[in-house]
């Protein structure tokens, strides 16, 4: 199926931070809260105008697992990640072919609201990006507040505390919730962004190099957190740090492109342990062994 969708992402920024209205699914009844969602792509091709960025990706992203996307720069892994919650289409000229499903439902089907997709498939970005003028509390509650405003203060406080606890940040900030989010350290800011993402209770969390701007200790803290979050969410993480993929993920997917200008492809996907001990494809072996990069 071809789905040029560039115009649909107007509300995306707010939605990426987490939106608001009462919890909604993609139109087929309430989601099952006892488990995270499965995402699947079939024949997925991604374009920027004439440029074919990602070609023919078939992958099943399993619930309650951390799936790491690895590969050299320009291989399309971030583009692929952004297609999972319809953020790819926010780039002018961007285009999607093929199918992306969330628990079997095509997220690019006509009539599906991309804002709802992005609420169910949250995103944490490379650089911690708390809203600079908002307090810690407001940052976490941003996704709730951006909507219809039906969330009461008590409920909001509860969600903020639960989310900050979930992001391992509560004990460090509980006495200064009214301080600006930007007053926190880099690692704390990233955990704040994770708290903001989980405040709206997504099914899936996408993380685009979430530790690349952090020091090693803050990085390990985020990795521990990722390990805990998978009990509630499906997690997909893009990382350039091979050891991070090895440490933090259950499944590793290797993307590669044959040469510059050619589209990136999914070369091999498998249990992380297998990818890092006995990969099947020579290109995967060469990449994880650091023979090219």
């Amino acid at each position, binding site marked *: 199926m071809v789905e040029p969708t560039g115009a649909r992402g107007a509300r995306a920024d707010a939605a990426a931070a987490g939106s608001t209205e009462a919890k909604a699914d993609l139109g087929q009844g309430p989601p099952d809260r006892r488990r995270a969602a499965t995402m699947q792509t079939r024949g997925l091709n991604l374009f920027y105008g004439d440029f074919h960025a990602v070609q023919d990706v078939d992958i099943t992203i399993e619930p309650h697992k951390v799936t790491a996307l690895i590969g050299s720069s320009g291989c399309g892994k971030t583009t692929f990640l952004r297609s999972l919650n319809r953020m790819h289409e926010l780039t002018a000229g961007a285009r999607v072919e093929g199918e992306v499903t969330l628990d079997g439902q095509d997220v690019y089907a006509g009539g599906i609201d991309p804002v709802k997709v992005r609420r169910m498939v949250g995103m944490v970005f490379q650089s911690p990006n708390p809203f600079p003028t908002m307090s810690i509390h407001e940052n976490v509650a941003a996704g709730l507040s951006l909507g219809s405003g039906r969330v009461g203060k008590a409920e909001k406080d509860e969600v903020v505390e639960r989310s900050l606890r979930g992001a391992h940040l509560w004990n460090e900030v509980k006495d200064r919730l009214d301080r600006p989010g930007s007053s926190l350290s880099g690692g704390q800011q990233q955990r704040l962004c994770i708290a903001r993402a989980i405040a709206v209770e997504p099914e899936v969390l996408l993380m685009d190099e979430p530790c690349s701007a952090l020091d090693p200790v803050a990085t390990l803290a985020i990795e521990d957190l990722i390990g805990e979050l998978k009990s509630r969410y499906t997690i997909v993480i893009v990382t350039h740090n*091979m*050891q991070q993929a*090895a440490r933090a993920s259950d499944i590793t997917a290797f993307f590669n492109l044959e040469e510059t200008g050619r589209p990136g492809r999914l070369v091999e996907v498998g249990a992380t342990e297998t990818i*890092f*001990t*006995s*990969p099947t494809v020579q290109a*995967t*072996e060469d990449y*994880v*062994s*650091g*023979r*090219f*990069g």
Partner: protein
Amino acid sequence: MPEIRVEYQEELEALEASALGGLDLVSAALSRTLEAVEHQDVELAQQVIADDDRIDGRYLEVHQALIALLATQAPVATDLRLISALLHVLKNVERMGDQCVNVCKLIPLTGNEPPADEEMVNLILTMGRQTRALIAQSKRSFEGRNVEMAQDLVRQDDAVDNLNRECFGLALELGDDPDKREWAMTMLLAARAIERIGDNAVDIGEQVAFVVSGLFREFEDASHPEP
């Protein structure tokens, strides 16, 4: 794509050569051990025992360098399997060296002019030479990542095992002379030590299969032999 991590690759190759070079040291030690057995050469036996420090030194040196590589380079995939296998090979090399020492320690015990039985000595020498061929083949199969050649070690080791059993049978038939029986008992210990060296060579072959396939399995399971 430019080739990267060249130094690391070179270091890993050098460490493999060094670990497998340990098999040459063992092979030389076994040759001298056999010579000491053949000629009842106590001096040569002492030299083999003293020289085992070189094999142990090789073990320590390469082992430490491999651990350093693990700590600093985070090897994965084939490199990781290779390093894991080399750590095993080093242990086998060290054990083979010790078995040569075990044989050499027996030589003074048999006295200056032991009541040696020529047939039994020849059996042990034959075992030793076949075991030396096993060592060389284990090294070649590792260098060439040749699983077929590695698996063939089992067949050759079976021949060594049979010779060991022949030694046992021979010892039983050597008669009632207490000195001769004592000598034969001692030689059985020597034969057993050499037979164990062959087993170590087969273990190295199993590591070859692991490096190539990523799956470890014993070529022969001594505790659950096939019917």
